[in-house]
């Protein structure tokens, strides 16, 4: 099977006069890819197009070369964890997962075995015999993920999966996603919480108002944005001495002394990061810490949407 498991070609989706997704072309292969965007950016529309709940108004959506809309062949390779928090509340978690396993075509014995396996994988073995109506948000998220893993799918789509999880559960959830990705699965995770995405992957698709603003590696995307200077904050007791050395570098645009050090702007962050240790050693300068506020997704997102 092709590594290009999900492919959108000039895909658009309109809801009457409102556009949900606008002329999006992209491919998604193995590993974790984050689908980023604010509320209303088109993330759920894209998820629904890939999971065959909706058809594109124009353009094309393919999963393993097949149009996914109402296509059972596609659903054999695909697990979907929807954003909705709705379940058959009268069922226990185990019964819910077993029920969906049977609908996946498993016989009774295999459905029971598989349900037990995925429930254990998401860490719900000790709580799965309680009714879903009494579950916390985190438990509900885990059960949703369990049902998405039932058919051991090559592709797993997770729509805002970290909503409602506590920090420990988030860490465990992210670790689980990494394990799945390492086993060769294609995982597409939608989120609007940027720092969470940073912990999951560097591969992103950035949506804004239905358009794909950027796709690829987070670092590469940042480097492409060379019209925006890259900021670096240095904490030091010798801000003036260091500033004097830094302004002499041709790729440093500006240096500003701050309360606990200095902040500079550069158009070539890679060259700057190569030069800084050399400078420190040669001149005997003392630096406590340095970091870039532009190295996170939030800043890239702000730049791209021009806000």
């Amino acid at each position: 099977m092709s590594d290009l498991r999900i492919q959108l070609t000039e895909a658009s989706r309109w809801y009457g006069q409102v556009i949900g997704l606008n002329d999006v072309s992209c491919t998604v292969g193995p590993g974790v890819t984050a689908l980023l965007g604010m509320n209303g950016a088109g993330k759920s529309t894209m998820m629904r197009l890939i999971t065959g709940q909706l058809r594109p108004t124009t353009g094309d959506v393919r999963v393993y070369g097949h149009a996914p809309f109402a296509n059972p062949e596609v659903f054999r390779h695909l697990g979907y964890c929807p954003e909705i928090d709705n379940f058959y509340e009268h069922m226990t978690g185990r019964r819910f997962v077993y029920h969906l396993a049977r609908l996946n075509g498993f016989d009774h014995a295999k459905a029971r075995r598989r349900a037990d396996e995925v429930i254990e994988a998401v860490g719900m073995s000790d709580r799965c015999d309680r009714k879903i109506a009494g579950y916390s948000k985190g438990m509900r998220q885990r059960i949703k993920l369990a049902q998405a893993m039932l058919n051991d799918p090559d592709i797993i789509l997770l729509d805002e999966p970290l909503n409602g999880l506590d920090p420990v559960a988030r860490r465990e959830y992210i670790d689980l996603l990494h394990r799945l990705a390492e086993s060769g699965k294609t995982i597409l995770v939608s989120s609007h919480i940027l720092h969470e995405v940073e912990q999951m992957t560097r591969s992103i698709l950035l949506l804004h108002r239905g358009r794909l603003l950027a796709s690829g590696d987070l670092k590469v995307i940042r480097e492409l944005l060379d019209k925006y200077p890259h900021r670096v904050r240095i904490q030091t007791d010798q801000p003036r001495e260091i500033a004097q050395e830094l302004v002499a570098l041709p790729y440093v645009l500006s240096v500003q002394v701050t309360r606990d050090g200095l902040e500079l702007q550069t158009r070539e962050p890679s060259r700057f990061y190569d030069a800084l240790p050399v400078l420190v050693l040669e001149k005997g300068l003392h630096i406590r810490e340095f970091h870039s506020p532009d190295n996170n997704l939030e800043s890239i997102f702000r730049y791209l949407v021009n806000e």
Partner: protein
Amino acid sequence: MSSSYLYLSTLRDFLRLKRVLTWLAVSLGLVLMGVLIKRVSVDRPVDELYSLLSSTLVFRLLPLVSAIFSTQVLSAEIEQKTIVYLLTRPIPRPQLLLMRSLASMTAVAIISLVAAVFVSASVHGAGALSNPYLYRDVKAILIGAAAYGSLFVFISLLVNRAMIVCILIAFVWETAVAQLPGSMYYLSINSYLTSIAERPSVTQTGPGLQFLSGGLSENLMPTSVAWPAMLILVICMSVGAMAWFTRFEYLPREDAE
């Protein structure tokens, strides 16, 4: 394999203890009404009394139960948004709809048959099961469950708040249209079921009961017309619903707005 599981799990869901107890209570209410009507109709022959009770109670209950259950086939899943779990399983959509519809029709038929037996018991006592008209009603209930079920499932796919529309059809349309002058009675499923049941005609009842039992109209079509008409209705509605559902796009209501 998933077909039979889908059918049985849906049927089990429709016949959950809470629901069964509710409908048993309704059926016992029908028995009580039957006993009361029997007491005030001492001169009426038992077959005619059964016919009156069956058409007034059982064949009013049938479309009501069908309206409630048929709208649960999909629209309840859509309202609760759990439809997404069904649509993303490797099950062809026509199969999904058909199996769930069949389960709904089976549940409706079981509840209506129990009600018919209870009504027969209220008239014939211990000899309820030897009532020959009960067996004629069984035929009408089975085809009626399929006819109402396929119609209501189709409607539930087309309109929002389908249960209100279906209950209006079950009560208002089905009671009134069959008794309108001219050929309007051809537009009521109950007219066809009355023909299939071949019940004895009821005489000398109050206008209220006569209206509810459909006795205001003398219109009765031949059984040879009623059977094929019902079968055609079931097939057309089922095929139409499956064709529509194959192209159905799921979008939560708040997103659509």
